[in-house]
């Protein structure tokens, strides 16, 4: 299941594919329009689009003539949610650390030394 998400991240690891995503965030576009700003063939762009489609980031409309590509914005919202969840877990951990540190404040100065390092084991 997380393989799906890996596909999303991997799809975005390529600078041309990130450009394509940026372009599509403005509006749907055809392969030709997407190829224009790049020094690569439309075939190369098609390959990149295939990767983005496999990751669920981009879909193509049924309009057979132009087949404009469309950005699936929900997937990005979900990715943001994943990272936010990870961040929230880290923040939760550090809030506990805040409490530990606050307690250390109250202790006498003599104990305020890292015990683990000099200690004979």
């Amino acid at each position, binding site marked *: *299941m*997380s393989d799906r*998400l890996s596909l999303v*991240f991997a799809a975005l*690891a390529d600078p041309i594919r990130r450009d394509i995503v940026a372009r599509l965030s403005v509006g749907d576009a055809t392969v030709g329009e997407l190829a224009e700003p790049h020094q690569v063939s439309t075939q190369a762009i098609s390959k990149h689009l295939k990767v983005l489609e496999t990751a669920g980031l981009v879909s193509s409309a049924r309009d057979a003539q132009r087949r404009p590509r469309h950005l699936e914005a929900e997937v990005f919202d979900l990715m943001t949610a994943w990272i936010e969840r990870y961040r929230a*877990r880290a*923040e939760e951990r*550090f809030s506990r650390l*805040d409490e*530990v540190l606050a307690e250390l404040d109250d202790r006498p100065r003599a104990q305020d030394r890292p015990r683990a390092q000099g200690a004979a084991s």
Partner: protein
Amino acid sequence: MSSTSTRQTTITADPNLPTIRIEREFDAPVERVFRAWTDPELFARWIGPRNRRTTIAEWDARTGGHWRYSVADADGGQVASFYGSFHEVRPHERLVQTFTYEGYPDGVSLETATFTDLGDGRTSVSCLSVVESLELRDSILSSGMDTGVIEGYEKLDALLS
């Protein structure tokens, strides 16, 4: 008593490198923050996750030393164990460790924590994790060690199917 910190945790995942950087500031002098990272009793109190109890089995926080701890649920059932080495312990500045989840012994990440004295009794810590592949990094980011993400996976499946 609690020191309410308004410092926010920031996460950076490089799109091209298998790394995760976590940064946070603390309202405590660098000596104490470093101590909370290297004293096993203190470390066990905050590393978490929530509703889990961390038991330190081995802990030699010296350059070349090693560590091992396990995490148990509220009933004492063991959930996961982790181990690694202290590659470098440079007091109040830098802590470099390897990190392996016992359930996946082929995987090892390199964890570097850099401590910066901000003056006025404040400290910033930057934790850089380097794992072996972007795929692994992303699965760590997406699942972590939490069990509460299943509904998220289902949602993602529904979205991508």
